[in-house]
């Protein structure tokens, strides 16, 4: 893929989470959809303002858990009943209560790993380069104490002047045009 060029979006910087939420609501109301806010800690209200509610992380976790349970249980049953049957203390070969603990542990192992890696994958991480890192004030604030709203250029309503006007009406500290 050739490197993209041009404007990525307009990045507005705010001091408080409240201002960010208000600005997001305003932009959403004005019809913008391709936008994203950036905060130094999770702000639920900001996600609501973006109308972002559902994540598929729990589903991935459930699927991972089911996979771990099945893998663990089948592995134990195959090994102890068919693969390597041993007569120990005259216990039945299929002594399922003894199989509970390892199957349980693998349920947790698989679901835990799929939760973490699933979350990263849904987030598109690892992604070491992102256009926003080009914004001079982003690195200094987004992971410390500032709140950012980025209206992206690939939104059909995006217009350099109109969008800037909209953002200015929210009185941010700064508005930066981010290049790819």
């Amino acid at each position, binding site marked *: 893929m050739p490197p993209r060029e041009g404007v990525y979006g307009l990045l507005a910087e705010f*001091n*408080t*989470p*409240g*201002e960010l*939420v*208000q600005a997001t609501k305003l932009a959403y109301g004005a019809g913008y959809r391709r936008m*994203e*806010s*950036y*905060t*130094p*800690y*999770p*702000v*639920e*209200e*900001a*996600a609501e303002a*973006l109308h*972002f509610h559902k*994540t598929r*992380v*729990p589903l991935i*976790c459930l699927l991972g858990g089911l996979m771990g349970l099945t893998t663990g249980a089948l*592995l*134990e049953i195959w*090994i*102890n009943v068919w693969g*390597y049957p041993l007569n*120990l203390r005259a216990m039945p070969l299929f*002594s399922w209560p*003894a199989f509970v*603990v*390892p199957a349980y*542990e*693998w349920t*947790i*192992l698989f*679901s*835990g*790993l799929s*939760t*973490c890696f*699933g*979350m990263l994958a*849904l*987030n598109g*991480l*690892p*992604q*070491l380069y*992102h256009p*926003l890192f080009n914004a001079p004030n982003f*690195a*200094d604030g*987004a*992971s*410390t*104490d500032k709140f950012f709203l980025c209206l992206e250029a690939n939104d059909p309503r995006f217009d350099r002047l109109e969008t800037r006007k909209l953002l200015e009406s929210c009185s941010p500290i700064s508005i930066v045009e981010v290049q790819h």
Partner: protein
Amino acid sequence: MATQGPIPEIDDPMIDPRTGEYAVIAPGHTFKSVTQKVAGIVLTDNTPMAWLGGLFLAATVAMGVVVAVTWLVLKGVGIWGITIPGAWGFAIINFVWWIGIGHAGTLISAILLLFKQTWRNSINRFAEAMTIFAVCCAAMFPLLHVGRPWLGYWLLPYPNSMNVWPQFRSPLAWDVFAVSTYATISIVFWYMGMIPDFGTLRDRAKSPLAKYAYGMLAVGWRGSTRHWIRYESASLLLAGLSTPLVLSVHTTISFDFAVAAMAGWHTTIFPPYFVAGAVYSGFAMVLTLAIPIRKFYHLEDLVTLRHLDNMAKVMLATGSIVGYGYGMEVFMSWYSASHWEYFMMWNRMFGPMGWAYWVLVLTNLAIPLTTLWSRKLRVNAAYLFFLSFVVNIGMWFERFVIVVTSLYRDYLPSSWGTYRATKWDYMLFIGTWGLFSTLFLLFARFAPMVPMSELRTMLPQTKIGKGGEDAKAVVQEAI
């Protein structure tokens, strides 16, 4: 209880006048100030001399592990004091002790998260680190105890030319699964929790090496709201998974004992009593680490007396469960009317190694469970520091009593023996303290010890009024 009592000196700025409780974070902090405080520890150019000295000392002690393991590999487990009948000895005592210590970290990071105990935010990161390093030390022991550690992978189910597979009806095979899962999930949870903080460090780092290293570790985290929502969801799910996991790990370890038909081991109270004991010793270790760290790095604003008070309360509760466990063991050995149980308990209390039982009663019950009721002592850092050592000594003796006294005098008097640890046992055990301290000191220097992103959520500036209009007023007030 104590919190209902008279409100203490009201002029103490750390006390919230509305509740009479110590504040979780000292007033007057901003997003920037908490970030600077925590990131400054890692990103400073001046490594404190005391840290270097501590690392040198810890690494020297950790050499004990290298020497003892090398000699063990060359000579075999015969260099240890283990014999028949006392075949478990230090290896299993230390294994159970270390892994028990780890349990408080998961309890703090997972169970207290589910219960919305936000005070945990300041201490969960280094408690999780403690878990991982304790599990490292713990896992070493059973692996060496199998005799040929280089064949340790035989414990895992994998297709091999010998056509031999593990035997899943043994609790010792369950242990492999429980401990390896515990280690993996703890590392995943710990690392995932650090990703946003690594992002902060990447953005604040000055040196190119630090920027690069933290940048790689942060995997490009940029604090996007959609990312945060998925991240929070994953954190909650991992907490929900870790909670039954941590309970199951020590339960499985207690099965190693309880499934055996041995007087003093074969009892149903072992799982809950082991888990409570694990949390008890783990909180003691968190105090051992937290009290010097908050002093040395001036983190008293973030790890406040409220934290110490709460941790002491958890110790009081779990210590009481442990005390109940001891009482029940004594009661059942009488009530079971079993000659063997009765003798085991007599031998445990008044036999040749009876002194160990009374050490554990003194250090696990008599000293902590009488003094922790006092609020004055619970907020006295020096006393808690002392007590944390007392409890960890006591918990080590608890495992010593369980492992050794049940084994060395069993059913057949002609096979009675005794147990004496050798210098190699001591060297390896003391070496693991050095290993643990070395790893912890490295963590304290190079990773964010206190989760910055979670601390930010505890500040008053995060409050948003309807539509956001109150936010400014709140912030102005807070600053």
